[in-house]
């Protein structure tokens, strides 16, 4: 086991390491802004944002579990079906600049995708992806990582945690072998240091997950769900931007005798999500679907994996078009 240290680097480190990685045919994803949206992109022609952005519109989840992926390809000829694996294997990828909350969410996705058997496409991408997170220098009012066991400096799920400095330099805390390999790309520009990280920004705690779990244990049937779900329009925006939501749908898309089997994001807020072929829907109303989303994150997931399925990134609160804030729902339960 290598000794993981802290290094310091001077301004310009991002460009130099991204350049070196690209030369080695590594896919480098960095937060870039385009059309008013900050997202992880292969930044050709776009200016990477070394700091000063709240978070990316989509979480790093989408690198490991894409919104749509090909599982297999098929061709049918009379009674024979030929199957083929999707084209190319996942490229070696380095994500530079996701936030600690998104990286921490990967531990939850790992738990699910390695639970009863290893999910091959996910595991393959996970092995080939290095996560270099940027510690938060400020918090948004919608952030609540500290309420769900995280922090603006959380190192969980990251291979390297970067503390950006105002002069463009940074402190880099190496956390894994993959992280050590990343630092290696910087060569002598990365100098070991004894310097400690700066103080994290303050993120007030908004609720207690233990109290919420206790309330959920007793209140599967409650008018509360009807009241808080009236606003909810039943779209999938909150789930799709969520770093821990991982439900998917599998579809076959064919043209004549050949096609693809794809895995796409899906969401428990949709009425169709639980609709049976018979027409029966065990979650026929939005209140049942809203309940499911909260129950899964704060009761079922903790019972199965020992932690809540939420990292407090606040995207659901910021994204919802009708102000259906998960935090206000949880805070209301906390006070019950």
């Amino acid at each position, binding site marked *: 086991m290598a000794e993981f240290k802290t290094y310091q680097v001077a301004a310009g480190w991002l460009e130099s390491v991204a350049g070196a990685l690209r030369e080695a045919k590594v896919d480098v994803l960095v937060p870039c802004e385009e059309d008013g949206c900050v997202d992880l992109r292969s930044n050709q022609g776009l200016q990477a944002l070394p700091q000063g952005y709240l978070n990316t519109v989509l979480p790093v989840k989408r690198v490991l579990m894409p919104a749509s992926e090909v599982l297999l390809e098929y061709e049918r000829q009379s009674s024979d079906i030929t199957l083929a694996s999707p084209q190319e294997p996942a490229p070696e990828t380095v994500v530079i600049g996701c936030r600690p909350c998104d990286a921490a969410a990967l531990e939850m996705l790992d738990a699910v995708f390695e639970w009863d058997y290893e999910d091959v496409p996910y595991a393959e991408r996970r092995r080939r992806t290095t996560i270099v997170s940027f510690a938060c220098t400020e918090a948004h009012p919608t952030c609540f990582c500290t309420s769900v066991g995280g922090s603006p400096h959380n190192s969980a799920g990251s291979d390297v945690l970067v503390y950006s400095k105002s002069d463009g330099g940074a402190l880099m805390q190496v956390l894994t072998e993959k992280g050590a390999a990343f630092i290696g790309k910087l060569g002598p520009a990365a100098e070991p240091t004894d310097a400690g990280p700066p103080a994290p920004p303050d993120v007030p705690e908004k609720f207690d997950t233990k109290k919420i779990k206790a309330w959920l244990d007793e209140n599967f049937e409650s008018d509360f769900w009807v009241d808080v779900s009236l*606003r909810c329009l039943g*779209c*999938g925006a909150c789930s799709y931007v969520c770093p821990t939501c991982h439900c998917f749908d599998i579809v076959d898309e064919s043209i004549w005798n050949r096609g693809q089997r794809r895995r796409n*994001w899906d969401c428990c807020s949709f009425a169709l999500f639980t609709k049976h072929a018979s027409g029966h829907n065990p979650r026929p*109303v939005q*209140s049942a679907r809203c309940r499911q989303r909260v129950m899964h994150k704060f009761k079922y997931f903790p019972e199965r994996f020992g932690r809540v399925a939420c990292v407090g990134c606040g995207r659901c609160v910021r994204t919802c078009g*009708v102000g259906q804030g998960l*935090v206000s729902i949880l805070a209301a339960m906390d006070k019950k």
Partner: protein
Amino acid sequence: MTTVTSLTRSLREAAAQALTSGEAAVVIGYELNDGEAAAPAFVRAPEDAERLIFDESCFGNLAVYLAKEEVRRLGKLAIVVKGCDLRAINVLLRENVVSRDDLLLIGVRCSGVGRPALRKCSFCEVRDPEGCDTVVGDPPEPPPTDPGKRYAEIEAIEELSMEERWAYWQKQLGKCIRCYACRQVCPLCYCKRCIVEKSTPQWVETSPHLRGNIAWNIARGLHLTGRCVSCGECERVCPMKIPLGSLGDKMAKLVDEWYGFRSGMSADEKAPFTAWSPDDPEPGIL
């Protein structure tokens, strides 16, 4: 704490009155929220009318709730409407989704929402909603922009070459993640079963790849042609910031040019695709 304006005071009084008299079982309005936009509120007791507000944070088009079963189950509905939202309600009335007798309309005179005001507000001609049961607020200021500029955004796109437009829309629609926030927030997307949910056959591919996204957005655009009132909610809630309003505007512009029709201007209007007339010029038929 924001100060309570005279508009908000009148609104609360009108809402409390509707609930006290039994004219409505619930008032759908706006309440304060942590975020940039006020949140929808469902007020069921007169004393709770104090939660209601109206200011420039009241973006949302509450008409979307009128077709929602869970909301209708609460009893007779009163709804707070801006003039632009009333256009959507007029379409719901003309399409017999709701009946005027089952609805209490509390209109608010509005000089624009958003800070700075939304683009749609800058040339809005319906700042004083007509045909409501009650209207609150002072006479609105006239819109600062010539209403003739309403299609300016889509005209800028039309000036691009076919190749440039194709590249533009491929890039924009390529971002779609198929969360269906656009559909769910749309007051006129009230189908019990959306075409994208029909799987025998699967008319529209559900995968968020470019082909599926283009099929989805074109299907939605066509279903809203002659119906969309350009409230802009689809674009406001899109997490990927796709300029969806432009798609609606393009169809609205065509219908305006071909039929001299703008959707939702009154509940009695005859819409081009749902009315028959012997002198129909039928310019849309090739």
